């Protein structure tokens, strides 16, 4: 078996399509396509875009045979497999809306996973659900009692008869897909993205962000249910006709070096990862690997999806010394599923550019004043370093606003607002959540905090309450819910948030107020909660018990996570070298955040 070639027969067309099916129609005229590898690096399936188009159209006719109304939601369990891509495009051709579901499973979490899938099926009102055989038992259990027309494996679809009408693909103003922004069981948010929006974003990414050339080739291990994995590395390559080599996220987590081997093997040029992926590689990399790997081809090593920790990337580049990897390939970027994917990219092949600012000045006045020369970095230096995430794509209008909503100038830090054609229509079935972030005149409140310097964007933190661990979005509501289920805890008595660990990585924290806040009973509660959180979410969480009435509330009586966080940092002040910056290693150990 041979992977699809890098060099194509048709001229590169960088996006500029009306809809996704048109993008695949064009890609199918060439010889490029998708290639799937096992964890041991063996190629097991090759699907050229020409074959993908044919297979997707056959499947589309089978879906049509079910007689579903236009725009019907089709839930696809998004394990990294050729079938996911076939079904995704089958929906495009059949006028149906695909909804990727997470394929994240953890030890002993069967019931949690089933419950999660069920919630996601309900929210998107899926009529059809597809999962690979290995996942089908979970999906079947999750859909019990729900009104679904068809639940099955890709093989089951093979038995359906094809419809006879001409296919009528989704048009530019129709919804292209529905993307869940977190795996939250109880508070899922499904972003609705139109064809126009995603194609606009893809054109921006291909032309301005990555400046794609005909010799480019992608490698990706990012989950297909993640915006960067789906839009960036499934739809992006189709819309730019690039061959892509896929490794599953699970295989990457087990054998991270396979990622690098694949890049070397096929002389790939573009591959992205959240910071934790670079960290994982650095930890598992052996010096003898360096001589066997040639990474000179890698021209865009993108970093995004969580706060970019430049020290981690520098360590990665150092560990890879001898492989030909060039640190200039690092490209910081910023984006979110609510904007289809991308907002801004640092310039191509310029490496990371770090802005070193006066930490105290920033925290007191919200102004990122350049730190005096010669001041060291690190916890005691009074310097904070932020990565330049580049200029927003030309399609966006951007504003940085203070708390009163006034637009701020250069180096003034505030909430980032965006407006442009790639922004979502709404959160599926959740008018309140939509209204919270999207104004009637089209401005999206990103919930991220940052500042600009000559048009370049620097992200300093978040006001939205999201916790991001190893690139996964964790909603504080999910942690608080578990706490509130305990007999000792009443609703509204738990507040979860994140703080930075020693290496700048995020750690989950939760303050729980209750009567039993000390002694053996308190210890039991902490222990029980930590077990439950590990089982449900696969993360460690530090739990602090506090007296009743400790948690701060807003004037309207709502729990304020940001103020809980501030208070927590003050209480634990001696453990922090600087407010809100770095948790001490002692605290990190307490949280079980071991490397």
């Amino acid at each position, binding site marked *: 078996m041979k992977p699809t070639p890098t060099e194509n027969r048709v001229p590169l067309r960088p996006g500029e399509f009306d809809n996704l099916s048109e993008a695949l129609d064009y890609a199918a005229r060439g010889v490029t396509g998708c290639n799937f590898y096992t964890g041991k690096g063996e190629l097991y399936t090759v699907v050229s875009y020409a074959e993908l188009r044919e297979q997707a159209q056959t499947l589309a006719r089978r879906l049509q045979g079910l007689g579903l109304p236009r725009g019907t939601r089709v839930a696809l369990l998004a394990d990294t497999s050729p079938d996911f891509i076939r079904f995704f495009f089958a929906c495009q051709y059949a006028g149906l809306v695909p909804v990727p579901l997470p394929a994240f499973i953890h*030890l002993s979490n069967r019931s949690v996973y089933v419950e999660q899938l069920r919630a996601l099926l309900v929210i998107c009102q899926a009529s059809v659900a597809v999962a690979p055989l290995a996942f089908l038992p979970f999906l079947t259990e999750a859909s019990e009692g729900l009104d679904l027309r068809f639940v099955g494996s890709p093989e089951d679809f093979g038995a359906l008869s094809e419809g006879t009408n001409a296919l009528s693909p989704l048009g530019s103003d129709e919804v292209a897909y529905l993307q869940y922004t977190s795996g939250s069981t109880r508070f899922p948010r499904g972003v609705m993205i139109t064809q126009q929006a995603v194609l606009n974003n893809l054109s921006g990414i291909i032309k301005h962000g990555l400046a794609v050339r005909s010799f480019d080739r992608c490698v990706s291990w990012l989950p297909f249910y993640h915006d960067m994995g789906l839009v960036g590395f499934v739809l992006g390559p189709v819309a730019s006709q690039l061959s892509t080599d896929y490794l599953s996220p699970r295989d990457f987590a087990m054998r991270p070096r396979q990622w690098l081997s694949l890049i070397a093997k096929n002389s790939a040029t573009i591959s992205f990862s959240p910071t934790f992926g670079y960290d994982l590689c650095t930890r598992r990399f052996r010096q003898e690997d360096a001589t066997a790997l040639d990474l000179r081809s890698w021209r865009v090593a993108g970093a995004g999806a969580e706060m970019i920790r430049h020290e981690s990337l520098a360590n990665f580049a150092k560990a890879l010394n001898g492989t030909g990897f060039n640190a200039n390939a690092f490209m910081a970027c910023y984006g979110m599923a609510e904007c289809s994917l991308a907002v801004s990219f640092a310039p191509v092949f310029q490496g990371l550019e770090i802005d070193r600012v006066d930490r105290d000045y920033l925290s007191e006045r919200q102004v990122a004043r350049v730190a005096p020369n010669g001041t060291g970095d690190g916890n005691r230096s009074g310097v904070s370093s932020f990565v330049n995430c580049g200029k927003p794509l030309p399609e966006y209008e951007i504003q940085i606003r203070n708390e009163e909503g006034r637009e701020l100038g250069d180096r003034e830090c505030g909430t980032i607002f965006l407006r442009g054609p790639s922004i979502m229509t709404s959160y599926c079935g959740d008018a309140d959540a939509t209204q919270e972030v999207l104004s009637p005149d089209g401005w999206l409140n990103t919930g991220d905090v940052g500042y600009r310097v000559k048009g370049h964007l620097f992200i300093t933190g978040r006001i939205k309450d999201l916790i991001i661990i190893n690139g996964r979005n964790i909603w504080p509501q999910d942690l608080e819910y578990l706490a509130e289920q305990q007999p000792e805890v009443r609703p509204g008595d738990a507040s979860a948030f994140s703080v930075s660990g020693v290496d700048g990585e995020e750690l989950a924290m939760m303050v729980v107020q209750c009567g039993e806040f000390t002694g053996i009973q308190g210890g039991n509660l902490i222990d029980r909660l930590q*077990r439950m959180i590990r089982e449900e979410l696969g993360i460690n969480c530090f739990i602090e018990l506090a007296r009743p009435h400790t948690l701060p509330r807003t004037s309207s009586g709502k729990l304020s996570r940001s103020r809980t966080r501030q208070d927590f940092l003050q209480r634990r002040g001696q453990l922090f070298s600087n407010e809100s910056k770095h948790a001490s290693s002692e605290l990190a150990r307490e949280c079980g955040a071991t490397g």
Partner: protein
Amino acid sequence: MKSYDDILIELCAILAPYANNNLILDEGTELVSDIGLDSLQVMQILLEVEDRFDISIPLNIIPDVRTIKDFVLQLEHLTRQS
């Protein structure tokens, strides 16, 4: 073919470095809630187990594995097949 007891001993040896010193590993030990494994550590352990027993662990068995005993039974089954 490895016996249940052989697998148990080898699995505990793989898990020991991840567990707190005070924790005694036995068949009833729960992997996530007692040992405190997070999702990335689980992946590292699966790798070590796959390499040690020369098997491939199917994804779909993972959510049903709660205790060391559950894990050993699955491994016994998988090594018999290979």
